[in-house]
């Protein structure tokens, strides 16, 4: 099997092999066609279509109750779709039982069998395939090496730490060499330090094996660091599908903009639009903001203007550069994080604006203090128009 390596944060060149979703000649590896799941009157998953390509680490992101877990359970075969089809590698698996799918799952609870040793847990899937004993032993050994647990082979699950249980669950799900690995909140139960480390290990493992991963998570940071592409889900539908960069920098609507990190959002009315830039007047003031936006918007229509806190520059002196949107304000609150500071600035028009600034200089003193008068500025490329 050729290893399809898919670049994370997809490269800009369209049609390049590292971004198969931009290449219309590529065959999707997993395809959901108008998939729905109803529980009574409630549509947990509502007419969803999706193409995932071989070797992707695809993340489905959403809050609790958005339908992401139901979608994953349908892929695993634990839930029957109410409508639609699922294809994996060209084969229709819509009605296949879980034990016949080329798919394995890592559960959020890990679901490690408590009455079996680590070894027995990992071997379980192969035993059900009735493989010869020595082949099972050899592949279990390989798997233990891969997840770096060879010395724990004979332990029982209650003797393992959370991180070790996670590896056992991962090894158990990977040993059958599934075409697709489903991961339900794979890092949620780990503490922060371990989570960061495991994140990288998971990515490396996926690169090494070339298996297609589908991760479900509610954690936007986890989604962004892991994924080749992210599908943002809300109320049973995909709100936006794109690379981490796309969904962060070019959110399609307010929901996505708010879901990923922080954003300063201003309500505004379109004044002019030429298909390249949009000029909009902030509601309740005369301030006009020019933003790059390649779509035509009708003058007079309503929109939101968003600027991420790290895109804003904060200074005590008026910026001299051209093409910047500048506003003045007073520092009302600040939080010191060591590597950066978060300022809450009360602008002249009364709006509260959040600014995140890197602490470039080494100084025990704060560069800006409470009640300092400051200038806030940003480049017109850095704001985003949210028309939905």
């Amino acid at each position, binding site marked *: 099997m050729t290893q399809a390596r898919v670049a994370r944060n997809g490269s800009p060149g369209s049609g390049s092999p590292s971004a198969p979703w931009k290449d219309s000649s590529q065959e999707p590896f997993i395809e959901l066609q108008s998939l729905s799941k109803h529980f009574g009157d409630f549509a947990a998953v509502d007419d969803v279509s999706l193409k995932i390509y071989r070797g992707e680490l695809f993340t489905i992101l959403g809050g609790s109750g958005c339908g992401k877990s139901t979608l994953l359970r349908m892929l695993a*075969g*634990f839930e029957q779709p109410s409508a639609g089809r699922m294809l994996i590698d060209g084969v229709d698996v819509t009605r296949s039982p879980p*034990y016949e799918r080329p798919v*394995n799952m890592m*559960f959020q*609870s890990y679901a490690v*069998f*408590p009455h079996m040793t680590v070894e027995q847990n990992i071997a*379980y899937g192969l035993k*059900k395939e009735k493989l010869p004993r020595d082949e099972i032993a050899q592949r279990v050994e390989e798997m233990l090496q891969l997840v770096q647990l060879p010395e724990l082979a004979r332990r029982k699950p209650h003797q393992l730490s959370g991180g070790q249980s996670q590896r056992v669950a991962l090894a158990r799900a990977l040993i059958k060499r599934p075409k697709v690995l489903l991961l339900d909140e794979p890092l949620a139960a780990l503490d922060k330090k371990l989570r960061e480390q495991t994140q990288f290990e998971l990515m490396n493992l996926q690169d090494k094996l070339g298996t297609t991963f589908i991760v479900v998570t509610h954690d936007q940071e986890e989604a962004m660091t892991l994924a080749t592409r992210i599908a943002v889900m809300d109320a049973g539908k995909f709100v936006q599908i794109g690379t981490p960069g796309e969904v962060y920098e070019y959110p399609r609507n307010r929901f996505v903009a708010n879901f990923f990190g922080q954003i300063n959002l201003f309500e505004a009315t379109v004044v002019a639009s030429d298909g390249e830039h949009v000029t909009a007047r902030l509601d309740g003031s005369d301030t006009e903001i020019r933003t790059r936006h390649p779509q035509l918007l009708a003058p007079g229509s309503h929109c939101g203007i968003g600027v991420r806190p790290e895109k804003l520059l904060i200074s005590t002196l008026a910026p001299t550069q051209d093409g910047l949107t500048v506003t003045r304000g007073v520092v009302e609150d600040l939080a010191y994080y060591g590597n950066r500071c978060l300022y809450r600035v009360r602008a002249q028009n009364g709006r509260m604006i959040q600014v995140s600034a890197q602490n470039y200089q080494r100084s025990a003193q704060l560069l800006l203090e409470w009640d300092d008068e400051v200038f806030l500025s940003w480049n017109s490329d850095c704001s985003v128009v949210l028309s939905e």
Partner: protein
Amino acid sequence: MSLVVNPGRADRLWRGLVITAPYLWLLIFFLVPFAIVLKISLADPLVAQPPFSNFFDWSGSSGRRVLATLDNYRFLFEDRLYLVSYLNSIRIALIATGLCLLLGFPMAYAIARTPYPWRNLLLLLVILPFWTSFLLRVYAWMVMLGKQGLINQLLLSFGLVDAPLQFLYTDQAVYLGIVYTYVPFMILPLYASLEKLDPDLHEAAADLGARRHRVFLDVTLPLAMPGIIAGCLLVFIPALGEYVIPALLGGLDTLMIGRTLYDEFFVNRDWPLASAVAVVLLLILILPIMLFQRLSQESEA
């Protein structure tokens, strides 16, 4: 894991009390009565008050003399009646335990899978029969199973039989009585262990290629084992020494050790022999309990 605590005086006193209490209970209500029964079993029967000989004889010139005898135990092995009673009891108790398991497992499983307000109701229904006297419930079965009983009348009125069937005073009636009485003791521990089962484990097994019956054999059954063993012991132990049910529902030929024991005590007034029967019964019961201890220790190791 070690607990590092430095308890105060009151704490230590309290802890000592908590630890001593169950041992005291065991001593007063189990070990002492058992010692008395053991002592009587080693005596000779007498027509006297009490109806057995002394353990020691103080009348002799050389002081104390032990009068203990193993005659009663010897007699247990000589008369086939006792062996047959024991074996019959074990057979009936084993079969009844198996029936309770077959009946109780699906019930416990269903209760554990029922969503909440209903689950409590079902559990209540399992316990509900205990609110009426046990004896009353066994009499109720006599009324239903009799020649003129409800079941025979129903069968006759539907024309399914020409003459009333003999239900009462058979081994089957004894099984019915034991299963009916003891099935809650099977259901409750089974429910407790099935309820703890994480449904993710079932899905994980299915995901890894196990069909439904394999999931049951590989995951459900081994994880329910503590409940199965506890339930089986809770049914087997009282069923083995059961007296009321075979006496009321069983036939004259339904020999169970409880009945033999009763007859020795109250009909023959042979207290020493009856005591010997009781001691052997206890030994038979201790065996499976020790086995259970071994098993549960192994599964924890």
